[in-house]
């Protein structure tokens, strides 16, 4: 009933997203560095699904994926890319397609995009955590 419960929900959602993205990026970077396999097919598809959901939320088109993206993550990305959103959506589409294709190597641009999404999810989770404690 209090704001704390809503914040706890938002924190949990954004911390889970931040963890999911961060763990995926670590695995991808390690695979590229040590030339070994990174994410499994299922992990790639799940990551592609998350990016697809994010794209849908940013473009306000369609409602098809199962992943739920915290609103503050969406707001922060809009804040960062408002003036060049069309390009950012293109990058997201390309990254989603690349991850959904099991054989495709993960390019520098996809890693760089995932790193940015990690930053945004991390900032959201941290901000929620602090707001829960009213600091």
């Amino acid at each position: 009933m209090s704001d704390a419960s809503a914040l706890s929900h938002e924190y949990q959602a954004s911390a889970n997203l931040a963890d999911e993205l961060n763990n995926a990026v670590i695995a991808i970077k390690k695979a590229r560095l040590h030339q070994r396999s990174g994410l499994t097919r299922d992990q790639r598809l799940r990551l592609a699904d998350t990016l697809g959901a994010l794209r849908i939320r940013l473009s306000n088109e369609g409602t098809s994926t199962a992943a739920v993206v915290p609103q503050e993550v969406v707001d922060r990305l809009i804040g960062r890319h408002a003036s060049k959103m069309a390009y950012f959506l293109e990058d997201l589409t390309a990254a989603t397609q690349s991850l959904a294709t099991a054989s495709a190597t993960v390019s520098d641009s996809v890693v760089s995009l995932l790193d940015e999404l990690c930053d945004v999810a991390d900032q959201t989770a941290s901000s929620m955590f602090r707001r829960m404690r009213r600091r």
Partner: protein
Amino acid sequence: MGHVLEPLLHDLAERFRFLEDELGKIVVPPEAETSRNRIHQIAARAKQRVDEVLNDPDFARPEFAKNFYHTYKRLSELAQAIDEGPLFALSRFRMEDRFLTRLVQAACEEFRFPEEAPICVAMSSQYYCTTIEMNLILIPHGEATHLLGWADLYHELGHFIVARHESTVLKPLMDLVGDHFAKAIDEASRLGWPAAAIEELRLYRQLWMGDWIVEFACDLVATFATKLSFAWSNLRLCARMSTDVFSVVKSHPADAARTEVILQMLALVSDGKEQEFVEDSWGELLNIVGAVEPQAFRTAYPKALLRNLAIQAKRSFETLGLKPYTSNEDSIADLLNEAWKHFQSHPKSFAQWESTQIEGLRKKLGLGG
């Protein structure tokens, strides 16, 4: 980066060692043991994760610095959340908390809550609130002996359901909201609405997709599980705490909109008379406070959207296997509905009745005598 992060991670490892040790030492009553054990394991796994990062051969590489920093932050938040939440609660777990935890467990069984029941402690300074990741509900000290607000426990249980069953519960509701506002914005653009009015629609969509939809979903869970008692509890809370029942606040939907969605669910799960009774009382309260519905209210909270949310939520709850409230089953929800009936018909003698009922419930839950 590795140099800055390394001592911080050692500090964090020490923190988790402490938490693990404390959680291992605490002796709690049986109703809190599952929770203690669960949090103990979470602390142990987190400690292991810190060690893994410290021993990672790529730890000092600059390209991983930010990623390991993010890992550090999430784990630090976890350590703080365990310390301030379950460890604090479990190390001071009193008889009142045993009673509340058993009460919540019984309520969860009755409406087939699809998760491990959380523990509930009477040490909140923020009314009823939930820490989802810690499986913990906090309520104010006095609530353990006053049952008119207990329907709000079901709202808090709703937060766990919504967070852990997003694709079944939250996603379909968000889709309804998204569709509604996409159409509304298209229509407004086509009709040449002023830019500010269209921007307002975008703002409402943003607020709905943030905290509002979660609060509505939790209200719908509580109404589905308790029917009238949650509606009355909501009305009492509005009377006690509302400044403007129609106002738009970022973190919570307007009280009037929440009341309306509760009424929509009541219309689906109870007979019309019950719904009318609440509606009449709500109308009376609006008259007393002199609240008038502003024009923008229906733009933010369209009636059809609220009705469709209730219909979809009921469908999702049934898919999850939640059991709607049915009377005369000697359940906790029954007690709450009886309490509200008694309170409304005998407000002066209610305290005595309430005290007797709570004493009886303590015995029924195995804590009497």
